[in-house]
């Protein structure tokens, strides 16, 4: 009998989806907490200091390619898995009534993920790309007093706040991105624990509730930032 390698086995592939998914959730928690600094300091010094710290910290430098790898594995694997799953039913049903037995989100993780990927492309282009690759006049250096010492750093706050203030399109895209991500997490988070095998009758319910809370926090958290700049200024 063919034992099959772990990587090609259905559960093996899903194991990597779960691990990378949970890793990305951890990244998003850090990402959201730092970005929420945008709305707690109108001078933008808090956010600029955080951005400066992230840009110069050696640990973050190491984590950046790891994060990119996490995204790549999660996305590529999802495509492989989805194709495999679609192949398992060559002839479809004429009539299906799936809304009675499962949620729309749980059945459409691939579509949600795809939409998030589109958002991610735009998001990376408008921020990361300008900060790291091309630069932008809005990023011209400012001096922030850090523990009594003046430190010169890029004005990331100006780049972000200007974009949200001036472009309704970008703001709405970011709100949509936050909501899509939140929805994706409401199924993905508890599902990851199920796949790793850490669930039982009791913990399944607990992880499910936690997943709904995290999803809600992400959706609201990321929507609040553009909304803040749209309404306040």
């Amino acid at each position, binding site marked *: *009998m*063919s*034992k*099959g390698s*772990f990587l*090609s*086995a*259905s*559960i*093996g*592939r*899903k*194991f990597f989806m779960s691990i990378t998914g949970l890793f990305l959730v951890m990244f998003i928690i850090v990402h959201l907490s730092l970005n929420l600094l945008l709305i707690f300091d109108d001078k933008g010094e808090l956010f600029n200091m955080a951005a400066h710290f992230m840009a110069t910290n050696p640990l973050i430098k190491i984590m950046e390619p790891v994060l990119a790898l996490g995204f790549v594995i999660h996305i590529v694997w999802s495509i492989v*898995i989805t194709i*495999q*799953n*679609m*192949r*398992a*039913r*060559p*002839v*479809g*049903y*004429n*009539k*299906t*009534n*799936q809304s*009675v*037995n*499962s*949620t729309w989100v*749980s*059945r459409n*993780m691939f579509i949600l993920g795809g939409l998030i990927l589109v958002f991610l492309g735009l998001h990376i282009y408008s921020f990361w790309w300008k900060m790291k690759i091309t630069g932008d006049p809005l990023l011209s250096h400012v001096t922030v007093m850090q523990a009594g010492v003046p430190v010169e750093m890029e004005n990331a706050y100006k780049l972000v706040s200007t974009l949200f203030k001036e472009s309704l399109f970008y703001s709405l895209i970011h709100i949509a991105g936050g909501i899509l991500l939140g929805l994706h997490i409401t*199924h993905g988070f*508890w*599902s990851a*624990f*199920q*796949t*790793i*095998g*850490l*669930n*039982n*009758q009791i913990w*399944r319910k607990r992880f499910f509730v936690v997943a709904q809370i995290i999803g809600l926090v992400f959706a609201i958290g990321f929507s609040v930032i553009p909304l803040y700049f749209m309404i306040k200024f």
Partner: protein
Amino acid sequence: MADIILKKLYIKVWRQNSPKEKGRFETYEIENISQGSSFLEMLDILNDKLILEGIDPIAFDHDCREGICGMCSLYINGRAHGPDREITTCQLHMRKFNEGDTITIEPWRAGAFPVIKDLIVDRTAFEKIQQAGGFVSVNTGGIPDGNAIPIGQDDAEEAMDAAACIGCGACVATCKNSSAMLFVAAKVSQLAKLPQGKVEAKRRARNMVAKMDELGFGGCTNTGACELECPKSISISHIARLNREYLAAKFSE
């Protein structure tokens, strides 16, 4: 008390003469069906009518007609085993339908369950998965003393809940990925929870999952649809156990 009579129903059913031939939907009219009759009785009445008209009767799987053999199938109006919870098709009654309804009946759809004829699909794939490891291979000898091997009540209950699986294939039919994970999970769980089954636990999980993949079933995306459509309400927490058993087996290789 007299039953309500459904004066007219339209039965839209999948007809396919053989595995190789192309199938099609046919709609038949049927009259005067008592709401008290079972769904399969309705199909029997329809078949009688078709035979008298010189039409090939609709082939469908059935056996015990009391919800325990796992033989009946049918995807009725978009749901495995029809529009009711925790029952097999044979336990479905016509009181779930109304006058003038069009009832769509399709076979289980999965690459691993090819259609043999009309509504009958080949579920040999489940047998093959079982043969790959769904057993205890020691000679158990005569009937042992009931208390010789103490088993906790919780473990016994969970093993029995998993053992309630009748292998009908509704999980595969319902799953958007045609995944057999609930079936395999039940067959692994019913042994993994008991001391007699633990000895071969690793080999069993590994081999049954390998066979499941080889036969072309899809992967589980945890939608939970199988649990809700399963006539025996097998919990998807058994799937978590299967994942656990499988990963433990693979990591210790």
